Structure formats: structure tokens, C-alpha cells
């Protein structure tokens, strides 16, 4: 029915305006080892609880965000612009 993502630029918006990409990981350096790259592309921790994910406000400001979400409760702790142009909002 509804769930809201607190966009640091636009305020609370429904999930339909967003595209979720998955875990917010740091891309390895070009010369990082094979395993670092395989981890980055394929391996996920899939924790129960707090998780940082990349969400794109596709039908809004079109910024990529890092959303901190509890995977068990869907409670959202906060969201910040991935380029950290603004602070995390609650």
C-alpha cells in the first residue's frame, strides 16, 4: 500500500518514485584483486537488520541516495545523497 523513503532533497516520498539498486558498496579500484571484484559484483552479506542500500529518486530529483534500512522491520534510519551533498535526514 505504501512505504516512504525520506529523500534528503524532496522529503518523504513513496517507494514508487524510487528505484532500488541494492547494497551500497564501494567500487574496488581498477587494479584491485580478482576476489575483491567478484565480491563487489556477486557477494552480498544479506544481514538481518541495518543495511545501507543505493536508492535512486527516479521520479523525483534523480539523485542516488544511500538509504539505511532495517531489513527485518523496513524501518528507515535515514537517507543521504550518495555524493554526500547534504546531511543524512531522519
Amino acid at each position: 500500500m505504501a512505504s516512504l523513503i525520506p529523500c534528503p532533497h524532496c522529503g518523504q516520498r513513496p517507494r514508487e518514485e524510487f528505484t532500488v539498486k541494492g547494497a551500497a558498496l564501494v567500487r574496488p579500484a581498477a587494479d584491485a584483486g580478482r576476489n575483491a571484484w567478484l565480491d563487489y559484483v556477486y557477494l552480498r552479506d544479506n544481514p538481518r537488520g541495518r543495511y545501507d542500500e543505493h536508492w535512486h529518486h527516479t521520479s523525483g530529483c534523480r539523485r542516488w541516495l544511500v538509504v539505511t534500512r532495517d531489513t527485518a522491520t523496513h524501518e528507515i534510519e535515514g537517507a543521504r545523497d550518495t555524493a554526500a551533498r547534504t546531511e543524512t535526514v531522519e
Partner: protein
Amino acid sequence: MSVSAIEHRAALGGKAPLISTGVTLRTLPEGHVLHLLSASADSDVSATISAVLGCDALTKRSVSPGQWFVVGDEPLSAAALADIVKKVKPHAEVVDQSHGRVRIAIAGAKATSVLAKGTAADLALNVFPVGHATTTLIGHIATHITRVSEDGFELMVLRGFAESLWEELAELSVEFR
């Protein structure tokens, strides 16, 4: 080839305004929409651009951090566009979207009620004051909304979706007509 006139076709050409006491919908002229993109989201950049162009919050509308739409009812000549590009260039790139975006005006006491059927954005006047702008979904269509008066909004939409948005708004405002 000599052609007498290269005719412009408006995306919502021929749509008569829908007027009632509760809410009025009308198409706006396909004048100009310039997409300004800055490398920086700093507010002083925004102020500088406003100053060099001499525009207010209703002319230069926020799109996202470091991006704005400069909007007007008149089409710009190539020279006028070049002049703006020259003025803005040190602060932002300019991409002409005058044909890519179509504007619709919605106004009246029930305008907010009609829009609330489509968007989850809170449009209460104290939260969304005159001059405030944001992009949001109206139904399934991403739409840039600017409040232009206490009970009036301008909606800007991709040209390809303009007709669908118009029809959706017409449908959503039926009960106030």
C-alpha cells in the same frame, strides 16, 4: 527547399481549457524551458545565476541540487538563447528543453485536492509555498510541480506524456466540475 512556413505543433494543441468553480486546467504556451546544470549545489551559485539572468523564483525553478529550469511563455530566438548561455556559462551548462517539456496550469480552490489524487507530495501552503518546486509522480507520470500562487500550480511534463497527464488530470477533476 523553399517552404512558406514551418509550422509548430503544440503537444496539447487544441485542448480547450477545462474551467469550473472548483478547478481550472489550461495548457500553457510552449515558450521556453532551459535546463541549467551546475557542477555545484551551493546556494550562492543559484543566487549568482538568478542575479545574472535577473529572474525570480517563479522563473528559475529548482529541479534538483545544482539544477534548475528557467521557464517563460515566449519562444527564445537563437540569439536570445545564445545570450543566456553566454551569461550562465561560467556557472552552469544550458540544455534547451523548450520542446521536450510541456506545461499545464492547474488552479482553483480544489487544485490541491485534484493533485493529491496523484501525488504523495504534501502540497499544504505552509509546507509547499509559492515558488517552491519539486518533481513527483502524478499517478504513473513524473511531473515537475511549481506553486505559482496560493491556489495555482504549474505542471511540467515530458512532451511524450503530456496528453496522458492532461487526460488524467481531466479525469481526476471531474468531481469538481
